[in-house]
């Protein structure tokens, strides 16, 4: 067992982990931050994306012991200080960018990383960036729209009845 201390969403948290314990397991099982999801065991689906020292990282591909001392942001840390939805989260709700919600934490974390490095991406750039995030529900249409909208670009609102 190794002792690990990380700063998660601004709070210092510690725990003892086995050498093989993944960051995703540590977050979910020991720190009870269950917003980070695990959808695969081959680092393909992106449901587990978190930010480690400002970079988007698949938490299932990192050992907890290796991030000792890191600053980590998870989906639980993405709302505004007053608890309201952050810009990307709000855009996902406004544009119906989620259905079952399982891929959503990873999608939001990836979108945040994308917009940090490319504040006004094209649709093609958004689609390309999401290569590592699988969603089975939405067909990506509304996820792409949500991210474009979160970047301040014009997209049509969801269709409303007459």
């Amino acid at each position, binding site marked *: 067992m190794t002792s690990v201390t990380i700063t998660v969403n601004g709070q210092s948290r510690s725990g003892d982990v086995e050498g093989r314990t993944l960051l995703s397991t540590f977050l979910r099982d020991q720190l009870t931050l269950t917003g980070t999801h695990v959808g695969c065991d081959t680092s393909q689906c992106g449901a587990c994306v978190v930010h480690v020292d400002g970079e988007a990282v698949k938490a299932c591909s990192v050992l907890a012991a290796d991030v000792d001392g890191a600053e980590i942001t998870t989906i639980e840390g993405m709302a505004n200080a007053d608890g309201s939805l952050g810009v990307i989260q709000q855009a996902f709700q406004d544009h*119906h960018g989620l259905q079952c919600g399982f891929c959503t934490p990873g999608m939001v974390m990836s979108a945040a990383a994308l917009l940090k490095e490319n504040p006004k991406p094209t*649709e093609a750039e958004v689609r390309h960036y999401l290569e590592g995030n699988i969603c089975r529900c939405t067909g990506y249409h509304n996820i792409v729209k949500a991210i474009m909208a979160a970047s301040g670009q014009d997209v049509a609102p969801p269709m409303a009845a007459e």
Partner: protein
Amino acid sequence: MPKDGGIGASSKRREDVRFLTGRGRYTDDINLNNQTYAWFLRSEVAHGTINAIDTSAAEAMDGVVKVFTARDFEGVGGVPCGWQVTDRFGNPMKEPKHPVLAEGKVRHVGDPIAVVVAESEAQARDAAEAIAVDITELPAVMDMKAALADGATKVHDDLDDNLCYDWGFVEENREAVDAAIAEAAHVTTLELTNNRLVANPMEPRVAVGDFNPGTEDYTLYTTSQNPHVIRLLMGAFVLGIPEHKLRVIAPDVGGGFGSKIYHYAEEAFVTFASAQVRRPVKWTSTRSEAFISDAHGRDHVTKIELAMDADHNFTALRCDTYANMGAYLSTFAPSIPTWLHGTLLAGNYRTPLIYTNVKAVFTTTTPVDAYRGAGRPEATFQLERVIDKAARELGVDPAELRRKNFIKPEEFPYQTPVAVVYDTGNYHATLDKGLEMAGVDTFEARCAESAANGKLRGLGIAHFIEACGIAPSNLVGQLGARAGLYESATVRVNATGSISVMTGSHSHGQGHETAFPQVVAEMLGIDEGMVEVVHGDTANTPMGMGTYGSRSIAVGGSAMVRATEKIINKAKKIAAHLLEASEADIELADGQFSVAGTDKSVAWGDVTLAAYVPHNYPLEDIEPGLEETAFYDPSNFTYPSGAYICEVEVDPDTGKVEVLGFTAADDFGNVINPMIVEGQVHGGVAQGIGQALLENCAYDENGQLLSGSYMDYTMPRADDLPMFEVDHSCITPCTHNPLGVKGCGEAGAIGSPPAVVNAVIDALHRGGHTHVTHIDMPLTPSRVWAAINGQ
């Protein structure tokens, strides 16, 4: 003006807030005090005899609580099948036992042999690796036709052969269809495979069993689309636990697409094991495990023949299908290639004579069951492909050939030759709408652009029908269902006027928490924020059949309407008393009860308060309280339909297909929340494009799964797909449910695969590769390239 609430409004989803902030509560987020962890040791071979299982080393390992094998399940039932098909000779299908843990034989890669329950998941996994299993491998049974040959290796030794059933429908039409085909002016024949798929909801299955030694009650938390069905199947058939001692909770569920309908061995295991070890037992599937243990979908091999007269009117259709059941019968497996497939073979057309023969076959593969659409995609694919091929052979426009044979708008209700009666539809309208939206009049110009870049552009049309909302219980009972297919709702009005709706439907992404309140709020004229939906827990919802078959709003919504009508009736009696008026004069609008023709009124909240504080109340006539339950059993299926149009570009040098545009013009009847409906279509279309171009569940000849992870099974990703053009403005309301709704959950996955394949064939023909008449899905670059190059 867009509505800002009620029926027809694109209300934002209230459930999103918890999902977007990491506060959802999925089954794997549940950890119980003193919980143990289960790890399944699964067969690595497709077929074999188990000679011995030595668990002694595993039992001695750190943290191990108990190791289970089939021996611990003596006296426990097998995993039951929920549908019995009768073959064309009047005999019941063959129904081999599906043990919770393998008894003496393993029959597919992934068949569970033993389970370790330990203090941690890591310890359980380590110990499972220490179990020694001595297996004599037997030949795998993979090819369906070979599996039916004389002398083929049997999957189940106690059966005569590998044939589950040989089904004919409509059996009386068999000879007439053959005669019509023999006499026809033109017959188009197509042999095709509907590729095996894995549903792959992003949340893997999870089950937590919790036996309470004090009360002897069991609770199962599980990733299910239908907790009551699991309670019934597992309680009554596997473990013998009566319903009142068994609570099944399906909390937030991360997608299902059919794969979470069925009762699985792992659910029975954790429930049973929890009582044995007197502690909660949790199992979380890995994705690798999901690929070999979640029921697969599709896997039909079909020959279809379409006969036409000299005027190109369809005169007869014959379909011969081999349907893969896998090693055991999953919950609804036998119904998929039969009743959910054969009854849809009329499609949108006036074909007078139809016969289908289906041979269901046991193989040494993971069980196969419903996946989004279930039988209807298979029917639609064959039909829409063979019609396209016919149009090409006859040299006519594929849209025209369809129009010519469409059931006409004035012909509804329409009795098909395959038992079902379509209540409403207007296929000409949806086809016209789809073609217009897809910009077919400027398509030739786009072809020229592609040609200038060395690419081939193609346009594919498909028009589908599906039967949803399954369905009248007495009818499905006759067809072999071992369950009723009604839905239930309890509308509980609280004293201050807020409402809890307890529904037997289950949301795993469909947005019930938002859409259902829109209906109740509209009926009562109150704010939808006052209505909350409760679902997914057998302890606090009435017995319901759950969500699949696009049935939630059509059947579950109808139950909710009926219960709300009862509420309104009773509330009017209370209002009449409070207003000292006759009940017949009471009107309800905008949350106010008023006396017709007067200015006397009483607010919703005053009536609800009177129901629970009945000081001034007609106690001699009605009981206090305001809570009503309704069970709704539909009188027919619903029949959504639509035109799906796909535009592709094929690179003839590499065979790569790019989907450039996809249009869906659907008739879903009335629509409650357009935003949610469109999202359902997007997701379904993405899965259909996935089936057509990317996804394939492939085994080698030894029964090893070749596509057992996301490294090998090609899930559609964001950059594989275009933006979709979707429309649902062609509306012919369903005539037999109170909302006039038809359901939209599966349409996208049903209509899209033939549209995509038709588009690719069109592109190849336009490029001069006229020798290509069909390519089996998925249309990967290598398959398309091989077809172009005659290989």
